[in-house]
């Protein structure tokens, strides 16, 4: 049984590679190395050797050749390793024919000209290519345009829902029993304050006349606030209650579920709704108990790919925000062949999806036009207000000041048509969202104020600027250094930015919700709930490091904190925690942040055994920034049956001991072995098959340095102090945020960002500010 490992890193290829074993070959060669007369002592002309003998397979400039060796001659072996490789394996037919000085010379030549990271950087001709909005950017931008008409959003200070309870069917103030903040709606054992006999001594003083009125008998409650999901997509919402109730989510006019009238015994009521991760969607639930049924109610959900659960406190805020308007239309996935999602693929299905999405949004807007324009049909200025709204809508979608011609083309001409105002608005919305000015925002010409606002919002939020940012643009103030700096930090702290960072972590740490299946005999208590808890735990950890503590990148690996709820604590055989998630320090000296987090350890493992290879590849590529070639073919891993006495480590060592395998596996294996203390579901263990786990290993850096590792903490220490790893993090983060390789902004930018990262104590938020500046061409040091 194999699990699938998602593709990551910078290599092109299919998004999912089946990984058995990574048996990797750095270089293959079909031609002979130039074999000089062995007796000639003069220094060989390496360029000549290369052109005469290597170029036929590797290309004249090391770019590779389709029919022979496709990949360019780049890599991260040290010079001595490369030389040794050529000596041992090149040319393939007769490795002995290219040795000694010739091999050394040609290795030096290849290394300097094509292979080394300096050479790669020098040879890169990256430019900022035209790209359209990614799926995420499209949705975020649409939501952002409408959000820019509302007051700006700040990170929530409080979770939960505003709750009101009444000793009557209706909500008269003098019947109010309580007004409070509830964590969530989980009252399967009875709603607070409800009394089956209707005795509410707290209401004794209210007027007697009203008390006899039939309408005042009974009990009612309402909860409101906003719902902030952590996934984007179709969510199933389930209300469990026999009482009368109505539920509204992200639609202040229409009920998602209306069961005010109850003449059935159905307990479970379902509905499905599209929600956007990180966005607060208005939420309101009203409940009635009349005359005397039990008052019980629970609100659950099934986010995409997650199991059913009561909506947690962390997903609610008591503040009611305006509706989120974003298309639920499904899009084809973005091109991720370069290791980050970007909009470089144009296809029929993508174009169709943009059309459907434009129509969907247009219909939704036209239904809400009066409220969005803050007017009503009877307002004598209604028409003008709607038109003004549309002008702003277009200008904000394009993030630019519209010319008179553009106003006429995109807005005014449609208002001259003899059609309903709803149809006029629809035309504006469709034309705008289908316009290349919206779909290819980087190609839109802008003045500097708009350019900065657009660049920052797109980089940090995948969206358009919000109201506050636009107001600075309108006042021509965004270029003022103090304001700009202020805004940058506000934007980095904004919920949109936090959500974007989460999307990066999901990508970088393979933490999207793919179901892990585990051996039910070995791990009978592992299920989808545990996996969901692990994922929640991982994101709480990340959130804590970045947003609650000081945002130190190194703590991602060094921290010994783990977030657990009672269920996860029990699973990991830890002391049970209180209700909900809480931070604990476990296995002191043994755990190392995300490196040993149960979620990753579980993902990077087989259904029964660990997989040092998966773990090693993950650490090498995603954390250390090593280049690994794809294995030449799928290789089935040796199973336990091969030799029941062997440990996992022994089997891996046995299977990868060949020289050809070891060229890659000497990088992979040591990294994976150092995490062997964590089993296939992320529990700490000290032995396997009655043998003590051996986590000691030696890792060789691209510079040829040998690092002795004695478990995850050594690995973590090495990682956080290693310049290549730090730069790798910057590169990953940069391309994820800007959708372009960092080289496209100038070959010196990586070193610049890195030195700033170090100066700023490896602060991730500062790094984000710097990335936003680089991508918007704001000098880093000047401001």
């Amino acid at each position, binding site marked *: 049984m194999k699990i699938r490992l998602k593709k990551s890193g910078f290599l092109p290829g299919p998004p999912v590679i089946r990984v058995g074993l990574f048996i990797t070959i750095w270089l293959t060669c079909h031609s002979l190395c130039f074999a000089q007369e062995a007796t000639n002592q003069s220094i060989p002309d390496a360029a000549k050797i290369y052109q005469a003998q290597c170029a036929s397979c590797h290309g004249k400039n090391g770019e590779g050749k389709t029919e022979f060796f496709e990949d360019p001659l780049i890599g991260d072996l040290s010079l001595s390793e490369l030389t040794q490789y050529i000596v041992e394996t090149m040319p393939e037919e007769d490795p002995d024919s290219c040795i000694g000085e010739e091999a050394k010379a040609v290795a030096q030549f290849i290394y300097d000209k094509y292979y080394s990271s300096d050479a790669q950087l020098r040879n890169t001709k990256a430019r900022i290519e*035209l790209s359209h909005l990614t799926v995420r950017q499209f949705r975020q931008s649409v939501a952002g345009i409408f959000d820019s008409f509302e007051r700006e959003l700040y990170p929530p200070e409080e979770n939960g829902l505003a709750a009101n309870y009444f000793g009557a069917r209706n909500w008269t103030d003098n019947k109010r029993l309580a007004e409070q903040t509830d964590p969530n709606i989980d009252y399967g054992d009875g709603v607070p304050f409800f009394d089956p006999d209707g005795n509410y001594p707290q209401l004794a003083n209210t007027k007697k006349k009203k008390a006899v009125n039939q309408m005042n008998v009974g009990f009612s409650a309402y909860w409101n606030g906003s719902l902030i999901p952590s996934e984007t997509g179709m969510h199933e919402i389930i209300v469990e209650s026999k009482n009368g109730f109505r539920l509204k989510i992200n639609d202040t006019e229409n009920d998602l579920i*209306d069961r005010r009238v*109850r003449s059935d015994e159905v307990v479970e009521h379902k509905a499905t709704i599209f929600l956007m991760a990180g966005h607060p969607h208005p939420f309101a639930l009203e409940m009635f108990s009349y*005359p005397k049924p039990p008052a019980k109610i629970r609100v659950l959900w099934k986010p995409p790919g997650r199991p059913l659960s009561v909506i947690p406190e962390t997903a609610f805020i008591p503040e009611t925000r305006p509706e989120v308007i974003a298309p639920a239309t499904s899009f084809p996935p973005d091109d991720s062949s370069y290791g980050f999602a970007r909009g470089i693929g144009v296809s029929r299905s993508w174009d*169709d999806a943009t059309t459907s999405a434009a129509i969907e949004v*247009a219909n939704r807007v036209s239904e809400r036009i009066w409220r969005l324009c803050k007017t009503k049909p009877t307002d004598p200025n209604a028409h003008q207000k709607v038109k003004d709204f549309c002008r702003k809508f277009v200008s904000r979608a394009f993030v630019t000041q519209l010319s008179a011609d553009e106003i006429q083309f995109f807005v005014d001409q449609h208002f001259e048509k003899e059609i*309903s105002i709803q149809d006029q608005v*629809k035309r504006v919305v*469709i034309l705008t969202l289908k316009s290349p000015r919206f779909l290819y925002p980087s190609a839109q010409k802008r003045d500097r104020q708009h350019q900065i606002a657009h660049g920052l919002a797109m980089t940090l939020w995948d969206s358009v600027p919000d109201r506050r940012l636009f107001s600075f643009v309108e006042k021509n103030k965004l270029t003022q250094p103090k304001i700009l700096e202020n805004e940058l930090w506000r934007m980095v702290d904004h919920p949109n930015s936090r959500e974007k960072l989460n999307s990066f972590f999901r990508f970088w740490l393979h933490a999207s919700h793919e179901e892990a299946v585990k051996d039910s005999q070995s791990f009978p208590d592992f299920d989808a709930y545990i996996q969901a808890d692990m994922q929640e735990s991982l994101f709480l950890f990340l959130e804590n490091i970045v947003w609650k503590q000081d945002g130190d990148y190194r703590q991602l690996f060094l921290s010994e904190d783990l977030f657990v709820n009672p269920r996860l604590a029990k699973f990991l055989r830890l002391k049970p925690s209180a209700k909900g998630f809480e931070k604990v320090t476990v296995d002191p000296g043994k755990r190392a942040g995300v490196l040993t987090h149960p979620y990753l350890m579980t993902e990077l493992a087989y259904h029964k055994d660990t997989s040092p290879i998966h773990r090693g590849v993950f650490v090498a590529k995603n954390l250390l920034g090593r280049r690994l070639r794809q294995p030449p073919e799928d290789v089935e891993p040796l199973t336990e049956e091969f030799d029941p006495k062997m440990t996992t480590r022994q089997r891996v060592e046995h299977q990868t001991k060949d020289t050809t395998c070891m060229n890659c596996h000497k990088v992979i294996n040591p990294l994976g072995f150092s995490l062997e203390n964590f089993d296939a579901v992320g529990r700490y263990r000290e032995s396997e098959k009655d043998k003590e786990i051996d986590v000691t290993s030696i890792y060789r850096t691209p510079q040829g340095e040998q690092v002795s590792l004695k478990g995850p903490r050594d690995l973590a220490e090495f990682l956080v102090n290693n310049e290549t790893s730090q730069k790798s993090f910057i590169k990953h983060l940069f391309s994820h945020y800007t959708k372009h390789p960092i080289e496209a902004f100038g070959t010196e930018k990586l070193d610049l960002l890195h030195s700033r990262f170090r100066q700023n104590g490896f602060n991730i938020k500062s790094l984000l500010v710097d990335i936003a500046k680089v991508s918007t061409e704001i000098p880093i040091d000047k401001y």
Partner: protein
Amino acid sequence: MKRREFLRSSCGAILAFPGLSTATGLRWLMPDRKRQTAKRLVVMFSPNGMVRNGFWPQTEGPDFEMDQVLRPLEPFREKTLVVHGVCNQVRGDGDNHMRGMGCLLTGNELLPGNIQGGSHTPAGWASGISIDQEISRYLQSTDHNQTRFGSLEFGILVPDKADPWTRMSFLGPNQPVAPISDPYRMFEKMYGTLKDKENLLSLLGDLKQDFGQFQSSAIPEDQAMLQRHQKFLQSMEKELTSSSNVNYPVAPLELPANVANVNDNMPDLSKMQIDLLVNGFQNDLNRVATLQYTNSVGQARMKFIGVDEGHHALSHHPDKNEKTQEKLRRINTWYCEQLAYLCKKLQAIPEPGSNGTMLDHTLVVWTNELGHGNSHSLNDLPFVMVGGGFGFEMGRFTKVKRVSTTRVWLAIAQAMGHELGQFGLAELCKDGAIKL
């Protein structure tokens, strides 16, 4: 069954289902299906009981009086049948307004529930299917009467809340059907995707112009991608122009723009909904429709006919109060005018593929949740039928003795070709369909 017989019968089955569209129940898509003499039903509802004086004729038979309220129907006298003595005899939970509404078309009790009106026992939704939905269900199950929607439920100023006072149509127990009060929303339902396409088609010129301008200002390196994109714009155009001529017998109705869904626009809203209803019949989207004016206890304020007070409040005044009686007569006359407008429209359309007019192939029933407003009586409901009659003897006024609504619904179902033996509560159908 012998092998040969089996083969023959199964071949027959295959022949009867030649294409996917038939097999998946999308028969209405087939343009050439036989339209065997269509039969349609419209149930029109207005609330709060009827004024006795000025509505009920005195003389039975063909020479009946068309007094103030019924006068708008004079042009359709020959096709009108007024029945006195139809009673909603369903009892059980809920007040008379609730039962009047929820039991009117269902002939079934309200389920015990959590909604209380006045000081009666609380109740919930009706416990059975309503006659409009039952007939629609039957028509959809037959080969030649299938339509896209089966039935459409039109509302005029039905309040935006779901409770036993606002729902008369039910798909079954606990399954109320919400009428659509906003004509634009009803249009969306009937022709929505078509309208989207039209919008897009009419924007194509602008889209191309915009794209062209953008493309011409892009740098050469970016042209390849934009050219690929442009091709999709062209294929969208091709697709839109080729598929936009969906074969509707008549064009989707052009609704007047910007009519807000508010009380003062009641006459416009009524006209728009009736026009849509007829347009739907012409395009054979449905064979059954309901037309629900407000709701039980509805408070329409008909300022446009000089009545400022709410309808329900007026209906509580005693019969001897001549001023309010006159107002109630005016209100109900206005409702009758709406009925007459509907009939006039149907009368003007020749029945497609058959003889006579569309009105001849339609039965319009106008009724109410109460017989009499101030007494909240469920007896002697106003009951007016206009149309071809489907075998009923039209053109007269008749008095029957305390006949349950269920027996009338049975008669109408049978007249529509649905041989129902029982509808609603069994004890209310003992005597079978009433002969009219």
